[in-house]
Structures are given as C-alpha cells and as structure tokens.
C-alpha cells in the first residue's frame, strides 16, 4: 500500500481531540481518589458537627448529669484497659505462633496452619461475643476464683470473683483472641523474610535453632512486631460487639479484672445506649465516638510510622 506519507497521516490525526476515552477514564480515576479523601474528611466532619451540641450543652442536660469530660473519661479508661490487656496477652502468643509456622512446623503443613490462624480473623465479632459469654465466661469462673484466692493481693485480682464470668478479664481474653491473627500475620510475614544469609551464618557458627532465632529472626522482626502489636491495639480499641455482650457494666473506674463491676468501653457504651437514645444523648454518644476515632487514628498512625521507619533503613 503505497499510501499517503506518514507525515500526512500524523498531521491528520493530531491537532484536535486529545483522545476523549483517555480523558474520561483518567478523570474517573482521579474522582475516585478524591472521593476517598472526601469520605475520610466527611467522617471527621460529620462526627464533629453532630458532637457539637453535646460539647456546648449544660452538664445537667447530658446523660448521667455530668460534664462531657466526666462522661467520656471512664469510658476511655475502660477502652484502653481492655485493649492493653488484650495486647499483652495476644502478642507473645502471636509471635510464638508465627515462629512456629515460619520456622518449626513441617513445610508441608505451613499453608494449612497459616490458613487456620487466619481463620480466627474471619469469625464475626458477634460470634466471639456469644462464645465469650456462653462458653469462655463460665469456664473461666474457676480460674478467677483461684486468682482471687491466691493472688488477691494484686489489685488486678482483688475480686470478689464474678460468678457469671462477665468480667474485664474474660472480655480482654476474647479481644486477645480476636487480634491474635492480625499480629501473627504481620509477624509471620517478617519472620519468613529474614535474610537466609543471616540465619545460615548463625547456624554455621554452631547455634541451635532457638539461638539462631533469638540472634537473627527476632531482632530483624522487632519493629514489625511492634507495629503489628499497635495494629492489633487499634483493632482492640475499636472492637464493639464482643465487649458489649460479655461485659457486665457498672461504670466504676477500677483495675479489678475479675469482678462483676466494670467500666465500659466507648464502643460498647454506644452499642448499648444508642438504639434507645434521642436528642442530646445521641450527640453525647457521637462525641464519644469521635474521641474513639481520634484514639485509634493516633495508634494506627504510630504503627505505620514504625513500619515506614523500618522500611527506610
């Protein structure tokens, strides 16, 4: 085809419509990105707007007749207490489970075992709540009685031990089970990425497997473990249903983990009171939700900061 000169072809096609397909598509993509940002801003904004009435209102018009700060502070205490205990219990177990899968279990089983641990994350929180109150709670009563009897001098175990198991200890245990897969997944990821040459170097020196793990794998994974723990913390702070169902709430601020009288958490408080609330009570609850949002935000940002510092080195 001795057709028109290529130059003429090019000239004909140019000078005009920058392809509209490309333009439409890239605009859509940008719009999606902007929507995400708007959504996030919207969450903060709407919550703020709906909280304002509670912030500016008279204390005696708020639920409980206290000021907003006095209303929210015990909830913050309960939230942080439950989440912290959950993390303290979960992290060592998660790290051990991750080590087991990455370094100790037979290779053929690794996929199946990892899948089982991840299955813990798939269970809906309401199911954990039901399991906690009907199964774990009653089963823990004996342990709690023993704790009160033998370790009752520690403020955590002052007692009197609850007979139903609806205590902060049990709630924290359930939270720990819920966040374990998160921490374990992060730990597993980083353990399996420990450079072979580091590990082989340790083994070549005659180290036992545990010594090799202690010398190379754990230090290598240290900041990832920390950030995984913080991610788990963030999750535990925001968890609602398990705590709502399990905890028997009396609103008292206490470190006593095994008694009937417990502080509530922000999330559980909202879940319990919101359906029947109206007016200013709703605004108060939303204000507490905003506080929860802020707390989890800070925690998650901290976790990401640690991870990105690790990536930089």
């Amino acid at each position, binding site marked *: 085809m001795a057709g028109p000169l290529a130059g003429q072809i090019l000239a004909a096609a140019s000078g*005009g419509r920058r392809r509209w397909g490309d333009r439409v598509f890239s605009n859509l993509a940008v719009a999606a990105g902007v929507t995400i940002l708007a959504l996030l801003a919207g969450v903060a904004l709407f919550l703020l707007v709906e909280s304002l009435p509670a912030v500016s209102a008279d204390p005696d018009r708020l639920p409980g007749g206290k000021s907003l700060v006095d209303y929210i502070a015990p909830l913050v205490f309960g939230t942080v207490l439950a989440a912290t205990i959950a993390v303290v219990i979960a992290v060592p177990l998660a790290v051990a489970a991750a080590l087991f899968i990455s370094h100790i279990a037979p290779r053929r089983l690794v996929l199946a075992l990892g899948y089982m641990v991840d299955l813990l994350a798939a269970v809906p929180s309401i199911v954990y709540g039901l399991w906690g109150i009907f199964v774990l709670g009653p089963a823990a009563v004996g342990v709690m009685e023993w704790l009160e009897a033998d370790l009752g001098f520690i403020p955590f175990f002052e007692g009197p031990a609850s007979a139903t198991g609806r205590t902060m200890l049990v709630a924290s245990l359930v939270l720990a089970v819920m966040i374990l897969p998160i921490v374990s997944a992060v730990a597993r990821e980083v353990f399996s990425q420990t450079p072979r040459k580091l590990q082989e170097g340790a083994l070549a020196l005659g180290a036992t497997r545990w010594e090799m793990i202690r010398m190379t794998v754990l230090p290598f994974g240290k900041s990832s473990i920390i950030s995984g723990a913080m991610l788990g913390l963030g999750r535990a702070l925001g968890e609602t249903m398990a705590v709502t169902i399990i905890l028997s709430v009396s609103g008292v601020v206490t470190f006593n983990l095994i008694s009937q009288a417990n502080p509530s958490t922000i999330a559980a408080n909202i879940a319990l009171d919101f359906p029947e609330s109206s007016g200013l009570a709703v605004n108060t609850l939303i204000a507490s939700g905003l506080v929860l949002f802020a707390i989890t935000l800070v925690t998650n940002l901290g976790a990401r900061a640690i991870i990105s510092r690790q990536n930089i080195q």
Partner: protein
Amino acid sequence: MPGAADATRAEADVEAGGPRRDATPALQVAGEPAGSADAPGARTLATRELNLYYGDFHAVQDVTITIAPNKVTALIGASGCGKTTFLRSLNRMHELTAGARVEGEITLDGQDIYAKGIDPVQVRRLVGMVFQAPNPFPTMSVYDNVAAGLNLNGSRVKKSEKDEIVERSLRRAHLWNEVKDRLDKHGSGLSGGQQQRLCIARAIAVEPEVLLMDEPCSALDPVATLAIEDLIRELKSRFTIAIVTHNMQQAARASDVTAFFNIEETGKPGRLVEVGSTETIFTSPSEQATEDYVSGRFG
C-alpha cells in the same frame, strides 16, 4: 552478509566514503525516495541531535542518524550505552518512564513526531515494536493476540477481513502452519521462539511503517534465533527495521547498516560513534573504538 539489492550496494559505497569526525559523528544515508514502488509502506525515520534524559541523568547524547527504508539497521554497542533508550524514543515509549525527557528532533518521513499536537498513540501505530522477552497477552488466544492491535486501537474491521489479516501476518511471521489448528488456544502454550514470532505477527498485523526490535532473540535458543533472523531479512522488504542487538555476529548476519554506540565512562551519556554499511563497520571501521568493539577487545 545479507543478500543486498543493487541499490543497497550503491549506498554502501557512498557510506564508505569518509565519516565525519566531529561532535555529530553520524552519516546521513542517501535515503531512497519516499514511497518506493517495490516496498509498500516503508518509510524513513531520521533523528537530528537527539538527546535523551531520565530526569537529570543524560542518557543519550547528540544522535543524528537516518534509519533507511527497506533496510535492517542494527544498533550495537556494550551494555548501558543507550541503545535501548534510543530505540524507545523512536516510538515515543521513552516518555512513559517518569521524568524522561527528549531534546532534539525525530522525524518520520519528514514529520516531527514530537511536535505539539501529535498524538503519541498514533505514532506508535506507525512505528511498531517487538520486545526482548516475548510478551503475548496471557488472557487472549493466538488469534486475538495477533488481532490485538486491530481490536485495541479501535479500527473497525469486519470479521472476514480480520481473519485475512491474522492469517497473512502469521504467514509472514512463519508461524501459520504451527498454529493454524490452535488459533483459539492461549498464546502462552507456545515455545519461546514461537511466542516471539507471535509477537512479531502481532506487531506487523497493524501494518506499521517502521518496526523496532529490542534484542528480539536474546531470550531464545540458537535455532529459534536463526529462524527469527531469516524472518527479519524477509520483513525488510516491507518495513523499515531497526534492531538493537548485543550479539555482533547477529548484526553481521542480519543487518545492512550498523550503528555503533559507545559510552566513554560510566555516568557519561551514550553516543553514536559511527554508522555505516555493515560490511564496512565490521571490516574497516574508521573509529578506533569501533574497531576495538567489533574485534572483541571490550564489551
């Protein structure tokens, strides 16, 4: 030495006479008049003082060269001297890398392809490319792979015409007999050499003016390599072909014109040192660096 028509020989003599040793040490090849009667669709690609950058890094410096129609122009030189970067600027693929910049002029048949208002997508339809590692589309059948250019750039082609084009391209690529019974199977079931021929069929199905090939045989075994080189020799009668190759023997076997790129030291931009007929470059090059490279003293 590829079988050369008389016209080509005449040019080779012209090229043999005196390369200029100055800042732009490249030869203007006396190109064939455009629209040559026996070579449908072949056109001339020319660059003038072309400089290519990645951000601040000056990758290729002051290249002035003409890629002539109905010839195979081989771009040779050691790794890292900018041959592939240069090749990718010829079909405006260079600019896809973030921060990449082009200075200077590239013309296709006299038309500056980087002029304002020129659509790079249109340029790429006229200047096709075959890559180093065969990359057939994994979700498409053999038929759809060859027809991909037609389907994806919105040309409205009737099914019967498409069938014709697919068969013609596969025949030209010497792949038809091997795949004619499995046109609807996936391209990934073919051998490396077959996949590369599939990619060539795909590239020529849209009838580009120029075909660029970036080390097309480096991922293939020697048998497949020779098959592709034969194919290239045949294709030059229809297309203008430029091929980047690491393999000097391949350049000697398959090309008519050879351009030697070199780099003075790491960090400096690559330059076009010498260009001439393949025979001249390999037997009596004018530059010392060229002589050193083709005789294997470095690279």
